[in-house]
């Protein structure tokens, strides 16, 4: 057992948690902004996949990693705009449109990928980002190499959390987002455009989901595969509830999930007994379900979540 524990708690383990948490943090923050404005975005799973594809492709074709990141962000924002068009401007069912966006984006991603790269025996890959050690901080023992010797996208995720909290709680726009998610009529009568605010929040959310996708194909795997996202989008939706629609708590939830995920990876590697590895794979999801069941009892969703806003309707 000691050997197992030793294997688990080391620099590599901490670094793995951070790496696993990064796309989840982006995705969770993205979903949180959207839901705070009153729009559930079930398109997240597909948006992440499509963004991962466009990011990978742009880099693969241009050789520039940052161009790839930009392509992924733009893709996410665009798909966010599509979701907003249906759910905010036209006021259609957020569930149905979200699932539609996921199915459409996934299909489009596979289709375009095949169109551009064809069928190859060895899937194409790109040269990923290099880690970027932060001077001084990366010399701290254990914590330094794990946290401060990371990829720039990881640092962006770390910065995104306080930034999201600042925007949401301290800026007039953030207040508008919270207001249109709680009582759109109140925002409207105060002269705030509910439609514009919701559009902005869903598009910002989509852009963050795009970053999550970019991280998966351009940092974590250096390639685009069909099972790339494998439920991380759905997990993010659960993490938003778990994090009670708060940036800090949501990021904390992402870290906790990443911890369990990293743990199960180590347990697989350690070859604990003769347990099939699939059992370990289930762990983070069992954790999510249990955590949700416990935490979501007191979680209160934004009051206007799922409710379209039409001014002349009373």
């Amino acid at each position, binding site marked *: 057992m000691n050997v197992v524990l030793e294997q688990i708690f080391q620099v590599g383990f901490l670094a793995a948690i951070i790496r696993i948490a990064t796309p989840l943090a982006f995705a969770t923050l993205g979903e949180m902004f959207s839901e705070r404005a009153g729009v559930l975005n079930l398109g997240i799973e597909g948006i992440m996949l499509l963004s991962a594809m466009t990011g990978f492709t742009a880099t693969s074709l241009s050789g520039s990693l940052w161009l790839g990141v930009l392509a992924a962000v733009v893709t996410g924002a665009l798909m966010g705009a599509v979701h907003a068009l249906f759910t905010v401007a036209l006021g259609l069912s957020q569930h149905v449109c979200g699932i539609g966006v996921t199915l459409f984006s996934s299909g489009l991603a596979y289709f375009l990928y095949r169109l551009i790269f064809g069928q190859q025996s060895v899937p194409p890959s790109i040269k990923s980002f290099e880690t970027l050690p932060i001077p001084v901080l990366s010399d701290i023992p254990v914590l330094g190499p794990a946290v401060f010797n990371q990829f720039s996208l990881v640092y962006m995720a770390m910065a995104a959390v306080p930034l999201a909290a600042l925007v949401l709680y*301290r*800026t*007039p726009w*953030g*207040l*508008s987002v*919270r*207001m249109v998610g*709680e*009582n759109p*009529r*109140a*925002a*409207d*009568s*105060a*002269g*705030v*455009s509910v439609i514009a605010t919701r559009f902005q929040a869903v598009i910002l959310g989509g852009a963050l989901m795009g970053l999550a996708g970019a991280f998966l194909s351009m940092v974590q795997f250096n390639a685009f595969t069909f099972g790339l996202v494998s439920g991380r989008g759905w997990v993010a939706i659960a993490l938003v509830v778990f994090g009670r629609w708060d940036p800090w708590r949501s990021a904390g939830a992402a870290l906790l999930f990443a911890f369990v995920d990293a743990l199960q990876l180590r347990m697989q590697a350690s070859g604990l007994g003769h347990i099939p590895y699939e059992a370990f794979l289930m762990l983070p999801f069992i954790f999510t379900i249990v955590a949700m069941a416990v935490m979501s009892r007191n979680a*209160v969703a934004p*009051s206007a979540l799922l409710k379209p806003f039409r*001014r*002349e309707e009373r």
Partner: protein
Amino acid sequence: MPTPDPLIEMRGITKSFGAVKANEAVDLSVAPGEILGLLGENGAGKTTLMNVLFGAYAPDAGEILVQGRPVTINSSADALAAGIGMVHQHFHLAPRLSVLENLLIGIPGKSGRIDRAGGLARLNEIGRQHGLTLDPDLPVSALSVGEQQRLEIVKALFRGARLLILDEPTAVLAPTEVDGLFSALRSMAAQGLGIIFISHKLNEVRALTHRCVVLRHGRVAGRVDAPASTTSSEMARLMCGHEIVPPARGPSTPGAAMLTLAGISTSRHSGMALRDVSLSVRAGEILGIAGVSGNGQRALAEVISGVRVPHAGQMTIAGKIVSRFSPREVQALGLGRIPEDRMTTGLVTNLPLADSMVLPRIGTDAFSRNGLLRPDAIRAFAEAQIKAYDIRCPGPMTRAGALSGGNLQKALLARELAFDPKVLIVSQPTRGLDIGAARFIHEKFLDMRARGCGIVVIGEDLEELLMLCDRIAVMYEGRIVGTLDSADATIAQLGLMMTGAEGTG
């Protein structure tokens, strides 16, 4: 009024919804320092007119002038910019955000951040000027209804409103809160603000306003220049188009006991429990239950309706002992009920009106057979009731939630009375209804009384109870502290008993 120059002027406003003309050629103006009453029955077009002024609806014709200059108001943002603030009947507040956050929504920040210090200063200033104080950091959900309304008023002033529209502001307030609201409004008018006060309560309009405009069927039915010296019945005539005479309760000869409660007590499950409550209502008698709300009235209504099971005591309906306390059992024994909250326990707002009208009896042969609904019978029943009770709606398949309060109350009444109940229990029968609708409901109760039904009316409006009931029982902390014959009872005496003083009856 002091200044002849109007703050705001509406000329020839017309607004239709489909074939219905909600407003037709309405003229209206408010001077600085003036409180204008806007009177009218439900559906007379008051709210539509104000929504036009506040930019929620675009008028089909007519113009709006602010201080003599024509303006176009297409959104609430335009209205706010023109100095018009509105306190809606249903508050536009986000319950989970703080008082200050609700105030600062839509206000540009300082260097990209919310300007908290500036907001606090402004809030304090408004508080000092008009005596409207609020704790800035409390979440709105922690405020009382009166405080939420105060926040709505502060919100309008915060945005620099010079004209304040209040849509039936007193409907949600307790009498003491009404006094506070009126003094704040008078203070605002004294400082040069214009106020439009929408109401259908004549005594309030007479007490508060300087002038009033009466709407009927979307048109101006009359203008009253001195409301304080105009009689209520004169104004009621303008509102309704005909005289309103309160129905006279003739003598009745009560028969056998239709409903008796003996020593009923309930556990303190939610709200005030009942403690040893005994009462009886005879055929052809109306018993009023008075009391400050929250003194066990809800538990009483629930026990009688079979929703709540008492842990002690006995109840009989039409001479038969209620053994199991279920809604179905008491209904089978001849009980009809009209619950306190039309929208939640009364009917299903998202279903067609017809469905709600048959809901309590959906399992009877009249509406279903062999486990299948009989849609034709349901529809026919609803259509007959809509006709008999003059329920204004496009038809039986209209979504129930789309009806006005008065029409919903008529629908609920129709569904119970259609089955000739031996006992009728009603809570707050005319809350939120206008004179005409309330009058209709009262007449129906008196009809039922004449036909030998025993009726229990739970209410807070003592004038209404005195007018309607033969006897009035007063509840306090889950007990009945006394029962008076309404012939000898006075409001003062009942008011005293409502505070817990033992009655003499």
